[in-house]
């Protein structure tokens, strides 16, 4: 179903799991170790911050509702120190208004009770993104289009447009390779790596919707350009002065 764990070359990625339920902590650590990750655990936010002082992991998995320091506070503290990827484990789902708060600090989230294969797929998806370098703040693509991927939003002709998590994941992959073609397979993997029923039409439909949102003329796209038979390319026009 999914790429199985982390059996690739190189050092095993380190994950810090923070959860106040000891049963879950032991089990999840076990499951992830079996898949080749190097695991540290912490029972609360303060312990987690102490562990961070001893060395940075590659990824954090944080429980949203903890009695001492809640997951959101911890995630903000962590982000204030370094741009570590965070996956939030929570009872909150996509339609919760608090999900917005999560999006500002977390790369992804998995609802409890989690399905381990799904969690593993999300971890893999976040890890793949680690190599991508995109501007932390705004990415100006042209006089009428600016992306703010951390906020999952775009500014089109001065108006703010909200992007869905999947749309922003695709744009993230494209922005990391600004001006170069990204294959449809890669985009499919980035956008829908956690499901096995996705096919290229997902990418096509999402790109069509994305053009409606951000292209000045959706029928004649200038930023989201199709490379026939290969994939898509994100194009920057009239780059502003370097000082901006």
């Amino acid at each position, binding site marked *: 179903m999914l790429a199985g764990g982390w059996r690739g070359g190189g050092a095993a990625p380190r994950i810090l799991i923070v959860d106040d339920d000891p049963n879950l902590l032991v089990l999840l650590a076990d499951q992830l170790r079996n898949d080749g990750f190097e695991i540290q655990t912490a029972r609360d936010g303060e312990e987690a911050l102490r562990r961070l002082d001893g060395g940075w992991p590659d990824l954090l998995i944080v429980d949203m509702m903890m009695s001492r320091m809640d997951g959101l506070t911890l995630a903000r503290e962590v982000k204030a120190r370094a741009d570590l990827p965070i996956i939030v484990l929570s009872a909150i789902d996509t339609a919760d208004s608090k999900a917005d708060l999560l999006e500002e600090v977390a790369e992804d989230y998995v609802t409890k009770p989690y*399905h381990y294969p799904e969690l593993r797929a999300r971890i893999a998806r976040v890890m793949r993104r680690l190599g991508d370098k995109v501007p932390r703040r705004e990415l100006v693509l042209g006089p009428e289009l600016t992306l703010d991927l951390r906020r999952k939003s775009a500014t089109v002709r001065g108006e703010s447009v909200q992007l869905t998590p999947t749309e922003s994941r695709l744009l993230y992959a494209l922005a990391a390779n600004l001006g170069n073609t990204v294959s449809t397979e890669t985009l499919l993997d980035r956008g829908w790596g956690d499901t096995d029923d996705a096919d290229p039409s997902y990418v096509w439909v999402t790109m069509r919707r994305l053009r409606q949102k951000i292209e000045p003329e959706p029928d004649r796209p200038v930023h989201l350009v*199709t490379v026939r038979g290969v994939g898509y390319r994100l194009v920057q026009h009239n780059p502003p002065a370097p000082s901006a």
Partner: protein
Amino acid sequence: MSDAGRRPLDLPGSTGTRPEPLRIGPSMSFRARLTLALVVGALLPLTVFGVVLLITEVIRTGNLDTTLVQVVLFVLAAAIIVAVSFAYVLTNNLTAPLKAVSKAVERASAGDLSVRIEVAGEDELARLVESHNRLAGALEQRNGELRRILMAIGETSPRDGLERLVAHATRSARAAFGMIDTRIELGDPTMFPIEEDIPGEARPVRAVLALPDERVGVLLGHLPATRGWDAADQDLLELYASEVAVAIRNLELFDQVERQRQRLVELDQAKDEFLRGISHNLQTPLTSIRAYAEQMGAEKPDQRLGIIVEQSDRLYRIVRQLVATSRLESGTMRPGKEVLAIAPRVRRAWDALGASGTSFELDDETDGWLAIADPDQLDQVLWALLDNAARYGGGAPIRARVAPRPNEQRLAITIADDGPGVRPEDRDRIFERYERGAAGVRAEGTGLGLYVSRSLCQAMGGDLILEPASTSPGAAFTILLPAEPPAMES
């Protein structure tokens, strides 16, 4: 006077029959009568004197001297002219004050009470004028009181609180009625004894704050000993007191509503907190139970472990339903809009239910159409509908069909069972909260499934409908979702 004072108020108790007005004298005008009297009074002696003079002259001389007749007639004519002129001047002088009084009364009845008439002397006319002045003054004062009372009542707001309202009403009453002191006591008016009115000392006044069904309190005060106080003043004070009572009642009602509203807000927040807490407290152990069972099952397959996983998922779905209801009610549900293929999702939702005893058929006619929906919320809807079909369908096969409706830019997911269907009288009710149809309280589940499902579909820009009974032997529900036509690489 007292009648004039009552008229603008139309108080209860003042509606007795009025006495007929007194009619004085004949219908001829006062001035004409006076003139006539003066002329007659002046001319009559003169005429008699002339006639006697002429008769004496006739007896003495035997004939009538025409010169004398002419002189008498001339004198009479001159006297008539003088008398008429004098009468004119005199009557003019006498009726002028009357005219002024009449004008003043007319202006007073038109509403201008500020006009006063001044007359020298102490005669009857002066007394008439003075009583008019007093009447106008009393009316003006009462009007002023009434205006101040109305203003005072208009100024109070139920938000001010009881203390401020009472203080304000007390101040206003004191100013409006010119009292020395005023207080408003809340509670049973009989607790505050009636004060004796001792002549020469400050005059006590009192009015009950009365509502049709309750006596709220009493207004007490003192007037300067010199101040007049008649029935109209008392009526006005009682009217004022009853308005204060109404204001106090309004304030109590307002307070009550405000407290209830506050309580409801608190309860609503408590409920949301409770649900959040419950869902967290249930989800934490469920997470462990499910994960351990899953892990053990992966190491050594056992059907019993599969049941544990399925049942904990089931419990989890119920928790999700409760949380979704709370969020739908508080308006914090904001579904995402992701591109989704529907048929595989329906299949996965069915597999997750673990209803292995029932056969399931999935007919995928999507033809490349993709739905735009929130994956988590759509899963909830699919679970609820498939679970219903499995439970109420009596084990009969369940058919699901996914097909686009290109004209509507929607995808339709129809889930049908061959069970007894929905009774006609239940068709409208099943989408309501806590509704369990014919099974009643013995039914499993929360009674929220269809309510939450329809609300979620609508929140995602779609709908959930129960198909007409004629289209399916059992129950058939159709989920409608916004959808995108197939896309080519472009």
